[in-house]
């Protein structure tokens, strides 16, 4: 417990101390990382804790953003006076109200039907917003300016970053506190066995509506932070792509671990910042990572981390280290092959390349990749990824066996420890 608090303290200290040393691009990326993290945490309150899979969380994210922009516009023309750092409250309120309304209907259904209702709500807003000028500003959307407040100008990216950091940290703390309340335990019970919750006399539907509204409220705060950061928003915030991103972040990070969504959101947004200048196929890699995690590590990155922490004392590194090294090598080979192939194909099939070929009367100019020039029809170009892929695929079964063997050992030791413990005596049990 103490170690965890210390770790979180270190992370917070880094998040506070480092950004002033970075450039504006980085500060912006980190603001986006915080917003995505908060959004994923809010989303995970539903799927991770209450077991409800929403495919339309963009609705509440967008509602929060638009509500905040309306308030910012009102402040701008001086009809309302409101402190800038508290702007996300508007997003929270709007998210909560719309979330309670949508949640009331959505939670009547469960499973696939629940997912479809949430999808329909988001699509409803997405198709309505471009035609509704008064509320959503039509296709162009709404724009406003951050007003200075209390000696702070809110003109720089850094100030916005700290605002986002404060709100994200506070929200995640509140979400954590929520899990410790009796109501938080009831939420978990709903996920595990709704029927039993009903038999115990709780109103399952009302509980779900409240959970849904709270999740929507924190999504609204995330949307508000985005509105403050970008000073603009349009109907594309409601699109399925936004709902899809939060699903990807949450499940890659791991929905069963409290801070898992933060891992997924941070990894993906920071990676996007790194590689978006280098490659146009970033979203493809993101999809591949997601599908691979769904297939081979259904609990996500967070689940893997948690498994290691849980069995820390039983891990025998002399066994595990070679297995991990081999798995890492296999992963590197296959990743290299896939990235090489995707990037090469991406260049060959791009309109720029077609234009270059027209200039050269149909000849195939070499492609530039990883700082080298490759001839399109030279066997060398295609032998490199083929060799990498072959090496990876040949070693893959071996790596999987080694991993399974060493982890089976860990689980066996855990099982042995569990059975070695004496049966716990029931308090007040009557001796025969």
């Amino acid at each position, binding site marked *: 417990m103490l170690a965890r608090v210390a770790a979180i303290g270190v992370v917070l200290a880094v998040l506070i101390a480092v950004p002033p040393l970075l450039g504006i691009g980085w500060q912006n990326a980190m603001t986006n990382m915080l917003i995505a993290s908060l959004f994923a945490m809010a989303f995970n309150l539903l799927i991770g804790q209450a077991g409800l899979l929403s495919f339309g969380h963009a609705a509440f994210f967008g509602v929060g953003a638009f509500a905040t922009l309306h308030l910012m516009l009102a402040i701008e023309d001086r009809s309302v006076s409101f402190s800038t750092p508290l702007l996300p409250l508007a997003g929270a309120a709007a998210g909560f109200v719309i979330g309670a309304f949508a949640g009331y209907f959505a939670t009547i259904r469960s499973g696939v039907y629940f997912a479809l209702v949430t999808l329909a709500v988001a699509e409803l807003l997405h198709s309505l917003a471009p035609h509704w000028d008064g509320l959503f500003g039509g296709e162009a959307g709404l724009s406003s300016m951050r007003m200075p407040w209390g000696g702070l100008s809110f003109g720089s990216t850094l100030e916005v970053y700290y605002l986002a950091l404060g709100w994200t940290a506070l929200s995640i703390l509140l979400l954590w506190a929520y899990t410790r309340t009796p109501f938080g335990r009831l939420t978990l019970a709903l996920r595990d066995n709704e029927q039993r919750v009903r038999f115990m006399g709780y109103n399952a539907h009302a509980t779900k509506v409240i959970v849904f509204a709270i999740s929507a409220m924190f999504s609204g705060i995330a949307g508000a932070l985005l509105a403050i950061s970008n000073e603009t928003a349009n109907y594309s915030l409601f699109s399925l792509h936004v709902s899809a991103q939060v699903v990807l972040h949450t499940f890659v990070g791991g929905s069963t671990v409290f801070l898992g969504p933060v891992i997924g959101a941070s990894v993906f947004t920071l990676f996007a910042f790194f590689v978006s200048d280098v490659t146009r196929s970033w979203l493809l890699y993101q999809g591949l990572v997601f599908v691979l995690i*769904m297939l081979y590590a259904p609990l996500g990155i967070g689940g893997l981390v948690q498994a290691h922490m849980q069995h820390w004392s039983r891990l025998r590194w002399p066994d595990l280290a070679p297995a991990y090294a081999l798995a890492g090598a296999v992963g590197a080979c296959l990743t290299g092959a896939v990235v090489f192939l995707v990037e090469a194909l991406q260049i060959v099939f791009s309109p720029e390349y077609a234009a270059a070929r027209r200039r050269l009367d149909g000849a195939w100019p070499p492609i530039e990749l990883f700082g080298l020039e490759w001839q399109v029809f030279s066997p060398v170009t295609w032998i490199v990824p083929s060799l990498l892929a072959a090496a990876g695929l040949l070693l893959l079964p071996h790596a999987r066996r080694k991993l399974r063997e060493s982890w089976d050992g860990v689980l066996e030791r855990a099982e042995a420890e569990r059975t070695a413990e004496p049966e716990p005596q029931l308090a007040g049990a009557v001796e025969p």
Partner: protein
Amino acid sequence: MHRRPRIPRAKAQPMEFLIISALNGVIYGLLLFMVSSGLTLIFGMMGVLNFAHASFYMLGAYIAYTIATTVDFWLGLLVAPILVGLLGIFIERYLLRRVHSHGHAHELLLTFGLAFIFEELIKLFYGDFPVNYAMPDYLRFAGFTIYGTDYPFYRLFIGFVAVAMFITLYLLLSRTRAGLVVRAAERLPAIAESLGHNVPFVFMGVFGTGAAFAGLAGAVAGAFFPTNPNMALELGVIVFVVVVVGGLGSLEGSLVASLLIGLFSSFAVGLDWSLAGLLSWVGLGDWARSVGGVFTLTLSSISGTVPFLLMLIVLLVRPAGLMGERN
């Protein structure tokens, strides 16, 4: 790029508007049915809501486009559904079955990820813009002329393919032994399996067939409607509306719902009705117009919204849909 014929306004020529819109609506509805039939069959059998189903439609269009521009248009129509069907079989056999034990939510998420990948792959190979997939010139003629407007033959052809597909599917399911096994496997999989039928194989076959139908729809319709990387997403959400309104798992329901949504979308774009107009019947029109906002939105501008409203109402009032039996 859009080859949709000009949509006549309601006021100009009521009869022309009525007939052309009805025809367009029925044919668009039949196209929706080609895609939604596979989705609803798969859901009925396996309980999997396949997010990647509309991607099969897109892949069909792009494969057919590739073959049409390099070899022949008709060969594309033949090969695209076969390749897409094989892809569907692969996905069911090697990916979906692997995550089956983790539950339906996991299967849903997997197909969701696959849809994501297919969209990005298409962007990788063909670029993030529409491609020029067009029917051969000898198919570009008027089927008939009505009120001085030429009605394109190719639209009728799309409708014809859909009807042929529906009849084939219906005969397969109701008249053949294989269809009997499929229906048994859908209703009571455990008993069908204990009677010696290979239920996983049936599932795989149905998944492949559904994918192939979606691929065929893409190959046929892509030559008339725009073929671009967004087509899967755009059609996908409408297809969800269709299967929900028709009743998840019900083939007849999805046919009725397809036609309903098709007719609605086709009529709504030509009508400038609004809530204010409706309220003026009871003398509140001026008040509503002064309030503005939701009251003055015309039906034509929110025609994209109404299907989702319909879907919400069906989900909340009658989740089994128009013709579904189960909840």
